[in-house]
């Protein structure tokens, strides 16, 4: 996509800079709410609260987290889409949103039309794990076993359309194997299934899975980032170990309703980037398996577009799309 979809916004923002520069300077003049369209206690919620707390110091206003989970993030996201574009309602989003663009075309909003990018927060690698009873010790052996018995191996996910599901579909497509998707209600149920051997493998958040792997409940084969994870430096990446070019992470970011003044977007981007660049923040996140992402508003926009295009290809290849 070479077309620049923010023409009107850019004009708007320039106007805003000229006329309401003072207003943007006064931002934020009242508490800001960050809508998290995921359940309380999940990684998205925890990092949103972490960020919200630290945004309070430089801005002098509290950033209130509001959990509006449901319907695979659509309920909370739609709420933000319909909120005033004044910078006082923000959306915490993840690649669930970029996947949904192609997975669920029939939804009441379009990400790049109804939202303006603010800043990315961080990404976490996934860990490819198998139940210890499965006789494979590496990604190569897993691929060989899966090729030997098509549809013989199952992989668990926390539900259709989640990053875990898409990581599995990407593995299927790029690894050239036929493994069966078993969706669950939430990642903890999926995790339980893999630990108990009901389902043979899963691509899951590294934070929780690394602990289970250390205790011998599951066998970790590889991580899914382009670089090895700081949590498990001894493990190869999936790309190194047999599926060249494979990358599937869970990343988080912040967006605002479209037409939010550019000055507000830049201010928020600056404050968030300051936080994600801090050494102590990077260290804490690193121990949990999350890596800071820092981008300008423009860079984040390009990143979003590339991510949407990437998952559109996966959805097309895998035939995972729900509402055809």
């Amino acid at each position: 996509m070479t077309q620049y979809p923010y023409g009107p916004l850019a004009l708007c923002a320039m106007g805003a800079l000229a006329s309401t520069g003072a207003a943007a300077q006064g931002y934020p003049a009242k508490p800001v709410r960050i809508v998290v369209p995921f359940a309380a206690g999940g990684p998205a919620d925890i990092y949103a609260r972490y960020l919200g707390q630290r945004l309070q110091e430089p801005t002098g206003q509290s950033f209130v987290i509001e959990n509006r989970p449901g319907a695979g993030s659509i309920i909370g996201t739609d709420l933000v889409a319909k909120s005033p574009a004044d910078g006082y309602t923000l959306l915490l989003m993840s690649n669930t949103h970029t996947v949904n663009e192609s997975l669920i075309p029939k939804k009441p909003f379009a990400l790049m039309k109804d939202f303006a990018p603010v800043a990315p927060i961080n990404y976490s690698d996934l860990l490819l794990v198998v139940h210890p009873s499965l006789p494979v010790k590496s990604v190569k052996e897993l691929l060989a076993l899966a090729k030997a018995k098509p549809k013989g191996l199952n992989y668990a996910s926390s539900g259709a359309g989640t990053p875990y599901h898409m990581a599995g579909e990407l593995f299927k497509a790029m690894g050239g194997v036929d493994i069966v998707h078993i969706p669950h209600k939430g990642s903890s149920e999926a995790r339980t299934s893999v630990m108990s051997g009901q389902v043979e493998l899963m691509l899951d958040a590294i934070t929780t899975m690394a602990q289970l792997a250390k205790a011998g409940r599951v066998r970790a084969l590889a991580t899914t980032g382009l670089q090895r994870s700081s949590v498990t430096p001894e493990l190869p990446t999936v790309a190194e170990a047999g599926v060249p070019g494979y990358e599937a992470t869970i990343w988080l970011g912040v967006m605002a309703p479209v037409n939010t003044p550019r000055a507000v977007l830049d201010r928020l981007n600056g404050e968030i980037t300051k936080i994600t660049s801090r050494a102590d923040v990077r260290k804490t996140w690193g121990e949990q398996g999350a890596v800071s992402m820092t981008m300008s508003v423009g860079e984040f926009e390009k990143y979003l577009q590339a991510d949407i295009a990437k998952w559109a290809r996966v959805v097309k290849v895998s035939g995972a799309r729900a509402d055809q």
Partner: protein
Amino acid sequence: MVETLNSLLLGFSVALQPQILMYAFIGCLIGTLVGMLPGVGPLAGISMLLPATFGLNPIIAIVLLSGVYYGAMYGGSTTSILIRLPGEAASVMTCVDGYAMTQQGRAGPALAIAAIGSFVAGTLGVLGLMLLAPTLATFALRFGPPEYTALLLMGLLVLAYMTGGSIPKTLAMAGFGLLLGMIGIDAMSGYTRFSFEVIELADGIGIVPVAVGLFGISEILMTASQQTLKLPKNPSMRELMPSRAELKQSIGPIARGSAVGFLIGIIPGSAHIISSFISYGIERRISKTPERFGHGAIEGVAGPESANNAAATGAFIPMMALGIPTSPVTAVMIAAIMVHGIAPGPMLIAQQPELFWGFVASMYVGNVVLLILNLPLVGLFVSLLRIPYAYLYPCILAFCILGCYSVSNSVVDVWIMLAMGGIGYTLRKFGFDLAPVALGLVLAPMLELSLRQSLAMSAGNYAIFIERPIAVTMLGVGLLMLLVSLKPLLFKSKQKDWRSTVGLDEPS
């Protein structure tokens, strides 16, 4: 054993620290309130409290949150018994006989037995958690989708025992509940079903607005439509406590409810909601006088209330022993300790003995606190009924609307609740029982998902249900129960059916 005792001593030395004791008390108090507020269930309660625990130490956080969780199980019964309003999903069954007892002026004994049953079940549950956690957790892991399917099918069969009304009417209501449970995004394919372009419906219909509407709102409408109001008589202090005979009647239900609830509670997932339904079904089935159920049988309060408390405790077993949350509530609790840098995992008990044993000990303390909190309040709660309906009911309605709205800040939930109130009123006028609707709604999504997961795992082969020992055993027991319940339908017994002795039609 000595080791366990030593560990428990360590636990009590943690739990009895004044600060932790105070937070256990606060947790229990908030939990009781959360349970009483219609709509706000334990999950909503602890999710709202979660951010507040980030600044506390992890032991306090978990003591506080678990206090809210099992406190809600105590509190949930109060509104069910007094005003037929289930505070959360687990107390739907208590509405039936608990409220019938209130109408007979026996609200006091009903509330007291609910508190006593909850205490016994909670304490037995902690004992089980302490002694058997690692063993049971391994067993719980053998529960995969096929076993789950079998369990839920058994739950569906409980329907046959749930009401004394006609079987076609019961089945119709169960069917209605199952259909309501079909609404929303299909977890397997991601298709949205029956949502009629309302995005809130894509997430399915929650049990809370339905239960509050069907039971609570319909009762308000029923009362409003009566020409002369019968005020419940004011009980004397002596009548507030259960009589010796009532206590004796309740021993069996409390013991069975505790066992059933505990076993269902340790199974990963959300099966614990059905524990109170199953307990009610069992009690009604084995009772010598099943006709009393639905008309104020104390067993119908004692059993389910014990079951839901034992299940709440049982649900901690996989969380503590394996370090993984197996239900939404425990997932929030795990998040609360993860924030403090404690990595959950199978080594949790070994690495964090103070956390685990402090938690166990605080649950003993918490159950005592809740009993002390709830028994003296019985008199206070009962006197609430003296408030004239003209003032009481508008307040209740306002609380229902507030509670339903606050669960997910959704106006759609309020409309669902009000619509269900109208439907519930109409159905009751035609003599339908409403409990099967609630059970159907709870079971449908779980049963569908586990059945389809099983079939996906076996590539469509139904043999997966008979190849697995636990699943096949449960299906066998369920089939046996079905046959037993069909017997009076197939073979007319020479003896008169019990129904005719109480003036009901025999089932044909």
